[in-house]
């Protein structure tokens, strides 16, 4: 066992001193450790969370490697994967989460290709000439030989108030014997009313994504830019966390957990509804 460790340490020392690994060779600037510490890609967030790379990120561990998903390595990584400067996650909640993830009997891992994580992408579009904020909820799905990111929902404020279906006495209706008149009173629904959604079924829910795509095809919507990205994770049973990018001085930077919630019964659905509807 000790011999294996010595060989491993020697191997790491050799790898890290191989010349030409850096980008520019002579004249490169030596990192003071900040960039090495930063969780530079979401891919690195996955690898660190799962304990699948070396501390410096230069060696990828695969199944069969002695340190692959090593609990001690994971514990070290998990502690640095939190936003320790601005988030209000209590130390106790954080420790409970880490203990849960590192459970000896049933450890939890993140899986890039498995469902249960979403990207929330803030963008800006021009809608009929006016700049508007649009949030896209995206997820990974299998497609032919590989995977792709797809838009699962769109949150677009101008659409929100388009379909305020009235309730109660203020809701207009087509009386129950309309069929006997060959629905001649549809005129009331489509010409006299400004709220044609009043005449839809109780189960009616506007499909904002379809309307959004339609408006884009009509050239009423033009993409301008992306203004922010964050990720929502539900892959760890009983927990939800949010990952944001922190671009700031210091060592606690990059993609980090900024929000952590222990899920009770029904909480997952509530959070998902909030993410998807932003109500």
């Amino acid at each position, binding site marked *: 066992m000790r011999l294996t460790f010595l060989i491993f340490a020697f191997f790491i020392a050799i790898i890290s001193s191989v010349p030409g*690994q*850096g*980008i*520019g060779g002579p*004249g*490169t*600037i*030596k*990192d003071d450790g*900040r*960039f*090495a510490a930063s969780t*530079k*890609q979401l*891919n*690195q967030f996955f*690898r660190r969370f799962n304990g699948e790379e070396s501390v410096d*990120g230069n060696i*990828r561990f*695969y199944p069969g490697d002695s340190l692959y998903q090593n609990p001690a390595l994971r514990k070290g990584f998990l502690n640095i994967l939190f936003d320790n400067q601005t988030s209000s996650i209590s130390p106790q909640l954080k420790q409970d989460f880490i203990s849960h993830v590192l459970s000896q009997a049933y450890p939890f891992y993140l899986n*890039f290709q498995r469902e249960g994580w979403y990207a929330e992408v803030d963008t*800006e579009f021009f809608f009929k000439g006016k700049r508007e904020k649009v949030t896209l909820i995206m997820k990974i799905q299998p*497609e*032919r*030989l*590989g*995977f*792709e990111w797809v838009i699962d929902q769109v949150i677009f404020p101008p659409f929100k108030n388009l379909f305020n279906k009235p309730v109660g006495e203020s809701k207009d209706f087509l009386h129950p014997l309309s069929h006997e008149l060959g629905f001649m009173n549809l005129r009331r629904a489509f010409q006299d009313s400004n709220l044609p959604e009043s005449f839809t079924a109780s189960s009616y829910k506007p499909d904002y994504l379809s309307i959004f795509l339609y408006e884009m095809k009509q050239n009423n919507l033009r993409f301008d*830019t*992306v*203004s*922010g990205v964050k990720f929502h994770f539900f892959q760890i049973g009983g927990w939800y966390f949010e990952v944001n990018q922190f*671009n*700031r*001085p210091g060592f606690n*930077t990059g993609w980090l957990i900024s929000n952590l919630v222990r899920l009770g019964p029904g909480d997952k659905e509530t959070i998902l509804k909030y993410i998807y509807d932003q109500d």
Partner: protein
Amino acid sequence: MKNKFILFLGLFLSASLTVVAQDNISPARKQAIDSLALEKVKDLSKYIAIIGSKETQFSEANRVMDRAEELFAPGAEMGVSSINTSEIAYYKVRRYFERLMALNYDRVNITWYDIQYISDLERQPDGRYVGVITIYQRFEGTSIETGMNYRDTTKKDITIYVEKKQTQIAGRTIEFWDVMLGDVRVTETSA
């Protein structure tokens, strides 16, 4: 008859497994691809430094821009944002190089940090693999007339496309893995 069927099924399954095995990238293969991708990124870094240098002649800068463009897949774009704005400005690769060349500094120094990060490779629907290499660049520009110094450090997330290709050498078909660069996200850091 039953034995023949089992034999046929066995052959079919082993052929299928071979195909699957060919499509997977082993850790050793991944390491070789990483090295190749890093070489391309190093070339790009070298070209950026040459294009950005005020000592580079216009004709030479144009020649180097051509070389740099060849590293990229068609249509690749640079998405640039600064500390002050999270909005991304998009430039075609050539346009980005031209803007770099036209910067109004008398002295420009572009250097790179000794750190990089290479992601895993994920397969996309068309069968090609895609990955991202992250590097950090320091830019220093000095204007003698105004005495102004500008310095920034940017993080560059560079898409790489990895594809298995075939070539004929002396009548034999040789397969090899090719790497092309794709979209680049340039983010100003607080460093």
